[in-house]
């Protein structure tokens, strides 16, 4: 109880520090710390799957993405620039009052909710046998609500498409290759195989314990980020169609499966006896694509293709 209260206060404090921080670099570090603390909260709430996702994506990868974005910002952006702008005191006051009103209304609504929610965990448990996996979260994501996941995986690809379409606007040359750093290089050689192993484990474990394609994909992406940091770049021969194939492998596997199930007249109905195998197959493709997509997002720029049509 005391621990939870302390955790909640720390979370609030970190959020306040993060928002009021003028230095963007510091704010990102605080954001990562916030994500790690949040993961502990998820563990306390008995949601280890969410905790894993929070650490891998919320804290780890988002932090890396924010850092990569910060590095691309122009340097001549003095901190505290906004503090000089004069705003009339009435505007913040009105906004604060309105927000307070909304927050208290929401607080009242939350307060009135039943403590024990009439959720669907009973239904999920009752149908778990039919789903092909024994981890209820995986069963919901890949089977009961697999259609949602199909669209979500496409959203991730869409995000990358958006970033790449922006990049083609101004063809700034790729940043100069950094000289090889011995420590980073050695670390990378040790860590990347380990990360790939962890990703494979998370993927496999997802069938019956916390884990799954998203977490595994994020770990895979972390390996990619490390490689990129160490100065590795995709060979130009692979940057065209092969890279695009890797990016769409997950969505295409999902769409293909959906189309095949249509032959049986029901969208995404997995036959019970093959469901476990099909889910593992889908997750493998999805993990691969998620990893490549997240790493590509970190790089930001579309890798140089052979023939120079970047």
């Amino acid at each position, binding site marked *: 109880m005391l621990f939870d209260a302390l955790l909640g206060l720390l979370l609030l404090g970190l959020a306040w520090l993060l928002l009021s921080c003028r230095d963007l670099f510091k704010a990102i570090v605080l954001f990562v710390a916030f994500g790690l603390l949040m993961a502990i909260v998820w563990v306390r709430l008995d949601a280890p799957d969410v905790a894993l996702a929070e650490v891998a994506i919320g804290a780890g990868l988002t932090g890396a993405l924010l850092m990569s974005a910060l590095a691309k910002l122009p340097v001549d952006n003095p901190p505290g620039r906004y503090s000089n702008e004069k705003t009339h005191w009435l505007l913040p006051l009105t906004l604060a009052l309105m927000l307070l009103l909304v927050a208290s*209304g*929401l607080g*009242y*609504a*939350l307060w*009135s*909710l*039943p403590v024990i*929610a*009439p*959720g*669907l965990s009973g*239904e*999920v448990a009752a*149908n778990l046998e039919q789903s092909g996996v024994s981890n209820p979260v995986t069963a919901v994501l890949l*089977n*009961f*609500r*697999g*259609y*949602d996941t199909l*669209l*979500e995986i*496409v*959203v991730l690809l*869409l*995000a990358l*498409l*958006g970033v*790449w*379409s*922006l990049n*083609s*606007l*101004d063809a700034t040359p790729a940043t100069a290759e950094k000289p090889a750093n011995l420590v980073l290089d050695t670390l990378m050689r040790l860590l990347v195989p380990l990360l790939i192993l962890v990703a494979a484990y998370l993927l496999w474990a997802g069938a019956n314990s916390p884990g799954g394609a998203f977490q595994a994909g994020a770990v895979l992406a972390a390996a990619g980020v490390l490689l990129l940091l160490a100065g590795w770049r995709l060979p130009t021969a692979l940057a065209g*169609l092969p890279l*695009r*194939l890797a*990016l*769409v492998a997950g*969505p*295409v596997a999902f*769409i293909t499966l*959906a*189309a095949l199930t*249509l032959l049986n*007249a*029901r*969208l*995404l*109905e*997995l036959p019970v006896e093959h469901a476990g195998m099909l889910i593992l197959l889908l997750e493998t493709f999805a993990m691969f694509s998620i990893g490549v997509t997240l790493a590509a997002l970190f790089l930001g720029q579309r890798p140089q293709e052979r023939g120079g049509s970047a």
Partner: protein
Amino acid sequence: MILHSETPWPALLILLPLAAAMLSFLFPRSAKFTGVVTAIIIALAVVGFGWHLQSEGVYRHAVGGWGAPLGIDLYGDGLTLLMLAVTALVGLAITLYSLDYFNTEQARWFWPLWLLLWAALNALFLSADIFNLYITLELMGMAAVALVALKGGRDALNGAMRYLLATLLGSLAYLFGVVLLYHGYGTVDIALLAERIDHQPVAWAALGLMGAGLLLKTALFPLHFWLPAAHASAPAPVSALLSALVVKASFYIFLRLWFALFAPLGGEVAWLLGLLGALAILWGSWQALRQTRLKLLVAYSTVAQLGYLFVAFPLAAVAGVVLWHGVIYLLISHALAKAAMFMAAGNLLRFGGHDRIVDLNRSVQQLPLSTAAFALAGVSIMGLPPSGGFIGKWLLLEAALQQGQWALAAVMIVGGLLAAAYIFKVLGYAFTPSTSREESIPIPATMAWAPLLLAFASILLGFLAPALFSLLDIGSPFERGAGS
């Protein structure tokens, strides 16, 4: 065998554009071909789905075989069909128009983004699940933002950024409402929620959050602040699909939720919506009249025309189903006319290299087809007979007069007059002599004809009322909220 009633048309409508988006991303060189073929098959699939609805009645499909509340259901009725059909029609025109619009680099991104947006729209119209709707909103919003930014340059990026923030805020508010409803009632299926929802603070909070989020996405006054910049700075086909389809999609969700969940709760909310709608008509039309740039004028006209959709809410308690048919009519004819208008404006802009209204005379005189498209679409926007816009506005006006809501009726009439003023402000230049002798870029035939055909369709719609009204009666969602 093709038209066998078991053919899963709705699933095809979702999977086909998704698959086509992947193909066009993998093979950019054949993206145009992929796009055209997809657009044609989607149109056929909508016809097939209509056939199915006519013979079998309301469509419900449990994805994965689980069924609500555990799984996700697809749902389709007459309203779904009309939205899918409008999307298919406008989508086909936009596809044809876009064949020659973009340069190679832009086309590389336009086709996958547009096909993904199309998939999101179809999935949205077919969903019966509020969480699944959230994902379709996310897919639609992200694709739309990327498409706005496609043009590049300060204005487009600025507009896209504002649009991104607005649409994300709207999505988050909506998601918060979904979480509350799930926690309170233990399901995210709309039909089940409709049975379980009651007068509880959590239902009110959900109504507030989801409503605010969706209205922000629909750009109801005063939440329209992001729309003019985004719609005016985007490439012409993108402006067309944003104004014609994307804002209508969030309105569609709002309408569905209103009838299924919130109408019993919100008597006073209906008046608030009506008031905001009336203000939107006046403010949007006035701003449109004041613009000096053509695309901004058309964008503000969208703000005004969206207002008409909300004026109906306070009138509905008495007027009932006919009024909602009018709203849907207005929605459809605005979709067709506004898409035509933005594409025609795109032609004028491309031909003359600018869209300053006072200097348009030469472009207007050299592009008879695009000018005709603009004028015909204008007829529908103004609400003159025999256009589709006339039917919709007439039904609304009639309801307001019958109920003695003189203020609302006056606003609608003033809105019509202002619309006439801003459209003639543009067309007036067709009749003044031109003096400038600038270089001009020729317009390909598809780009000239696509908007004209859509504008014709928006006029023709005026003659199709009985047929479309009977389609809307298939599992009419309006019965529930009408009488109460």
